[in-house]
Structures are given as C-alpha cells and as structure tokens.
C-alpha cells in the first residue's frame, strides 16, 4: 500500500462523517434547481455545475492541506496520486485508481459515486453531465496548486459504462508569484 493510500485511509477513519444519502439528495435538489433555472438547456446546466464545483475546489484545497499532512509533491504524478488516493478518500470515502497517461495527463477511475446514488438519467437528459461537479472541484483545487487543467468525464455509469473515469489534462503550469501588477517598484 502506498503512502498516499494509507494516509487517505487514516484520514477517512478520523474525519467526522455525514450521511451519504443526505449528501446525494441535497446535490440532487441542487441539480434540479439548476436545470429549472436554465430552462432545461443542458449545456448551460453543465457549465453552471462545473462552476459550482470550481468554487468548492478552490476552498477545499485549503481544508485538505491543513488536515492531511501530505508530503510535498515534486511531480504531477505525485500530485495525481495524492489527489486520487488521499483527497478523494478523505472527503468522499471512495477508493480511486490513478492511471498515468503521460507526464501531463492522468485519469481517475472509481466505482462508487456518492453524488449519483439513486440517479438514473431520462432518455432526453443524456447530455447532462450529472457528476461534473467533480471536474470543477479538481480544476479549482489544482489551479490553487499552479496547474491549469482541463478535466472531463470520459466514462460514467449513468451513460452505460461500467465505471467512472475522469480524465485530467494539464494545459499549463503557472509560475509562482503575485504577478506583474504586484511587483515592487
């Protein structure tokens, strides 16, 4: 068992828990509202849900770094490992497999998805990326770690696949620092 996995396991045993059904139902209610507000325009719905995820992501990375005691990651591969094995485990209690494709891309594979308990998509909602929240969270969290990424679902049981697969492509590694505007004169 790798360090990231055992760390994730330990954290999961330690954190206070909430009912997964409540979690799933609350997210369901949120999706329903978003669909209603967007007049069933599914592209807009996906975009909005992703944004909601993004704003969770940029904040939950703080929570993670504060609680997890994770070692400093030197490469993207290590970051991916910690993201999949420690962070997902700590927040959602699910087991995630991390597959590296290239130095700048990796996939997260998992079976259980607390967001989509009880969910089945009707025929005319096949375009809805129900769990796209995760993509937003990952994008937000990695952006705080200076990775600009592209993140999308390539497999989802809601669309007939047998597992979930989220593919993450790193577009750009941002440089540290406060940016041009904040340089000292």
């Amino acid at each position, binding site marked *: 068992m790798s360090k990231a996995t055992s760390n994730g396991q330990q954290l*999961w045993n330690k*954190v*206070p*828990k*909430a*009912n*997964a*059904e*409540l*979690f799933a*139902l*609350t*997210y*369901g*209610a*949120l999706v*329903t*509202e*978003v669909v209603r*507000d967007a007049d069933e325009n599914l592209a807009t719905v996906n975009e909005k849900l992703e944004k*909601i995820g993004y*704003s*969770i992501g940029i*904040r*939950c990375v703080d*929570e993670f770094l504060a609680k997890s005691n994770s070692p400093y990651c030197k490469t993207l591969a290590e970051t991916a490992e910690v993201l999949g094995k420690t962070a997902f485990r*700590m*927040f*959602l*209690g*699910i087991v995630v497999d991390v597959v590296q494709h290239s130095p700048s891309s990796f996939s997260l594979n998992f*079976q*259980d998805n*607390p967001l989509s*308990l*009880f969910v089945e998509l009707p025929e005319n909602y096949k375009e809805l990326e129900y769990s796209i929240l995760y993509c937003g969270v990952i994008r937000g969290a990695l952006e705080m770690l200076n990775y600009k990424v592209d993140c999308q679902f390539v497999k989802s049981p809601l669309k007939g696949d047998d597992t979930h697969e989220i593919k993450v492509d790193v577009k750009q590694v941002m440089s540290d620092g406060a940016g041009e505007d904040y340089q000292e004169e």
Partner: protein
Amino acid sequence: MSYPTSVSDAAMEFLMTEVLRYVEESTPKEGETEEQAIFAKEMAAAKMERMGFSVGYRLCERMAQNRTFSAGGKDPSMAVAAAQLEAVKFLCKEIWMEVFRKQIDKLQTNHRGVFVLKDMELRWLTRLPPNTETARVTAIQLLAFPCGIIRGCLSNLGIPAVVSCDFLADGQNMSACSFNIKIK
C-alpha cells in the same frame, strides 16, 4: 455493488455552502425599491425551502420504510392525533439524527396540530459570527432549508403542514432556533 453510506462532514458542508450561494446568485438581485428587495429575498427563501422539501420527502421515504405510525385501539379522533405525534417524534429523533447528528432538544405540542421544535445548537449555524447583521440574514435564509426538510418529511408521511422558523439567537449563541409546525 456496495455503495457509500457516508461522506466526510467537510464535503457536506462545502456542498451546503454552495447551495446557499447558488440560491443567492440565481435569484434576481435586490431591486431598487424596498418591495423588490423583499421580493428577491422571498424568492430565495422559497427556493431554499423547495430544495429542502425534496430532500426531506425522499429521505423520509428511505428511512420510514417498514414503519407504521399508528396508535390502534383508541377512538378515531385520538388515533389521528397520536399518529401525528408519532410522526413528529420520528422526525425529531431519527431524521434529525441523520441530517444534523443530534436530536431535537425540545418538543412542545398543544395536542391540536401545533408543534414547536427547539434546537439549541443547529450544526449549520454554529460557525456564524455572533452579533452581525449579515450573519443573521444568512442564518434566516439557511433555515428555510430545514423548514423544507420538515415539511417534506411530514408530507411524505401523509401529513400536510405549514412550517415556519424562529431564530432564537440572543446575539451570543447564533445556533439556537425553533421550528413551528402547524398541521393543516
């Protein structure tokens, strides 16, 4: 296939924050006149309540399986009241336990369809700073959600009700509140 039975509390809290934020963003911004501003707030509260309702309705459906809320052997009018009390007790104990991981602290009733539920420490409110106006406004908005949960649960059990909430905060302790249930 096994399925997850719990997630971390932090994840739930992040989601709840976003729900609140989404509701605020998606309703029309405060209008120019006072009437419009109040209308906007009411829209937001209604939305929150609607979401709570759907959560409560479904959660109750899951949890109340294989249960009966009846008090047999009494005369019919008494039996209805007794069954309602059973339902509200179920709400205070089991549903509340699932949602807030504690039970309602105090249940009062006049035995004629009015119940008052007091919670001295609602978890979603514990982090709010005391003595600020904005925290108060947020708390009141947030409370529409549990109101919806209560209405949803009772509705699932076949009891139509009107639920309102009062904020008991005295400025120091922000997390005390009470829910008033009136069965139609």
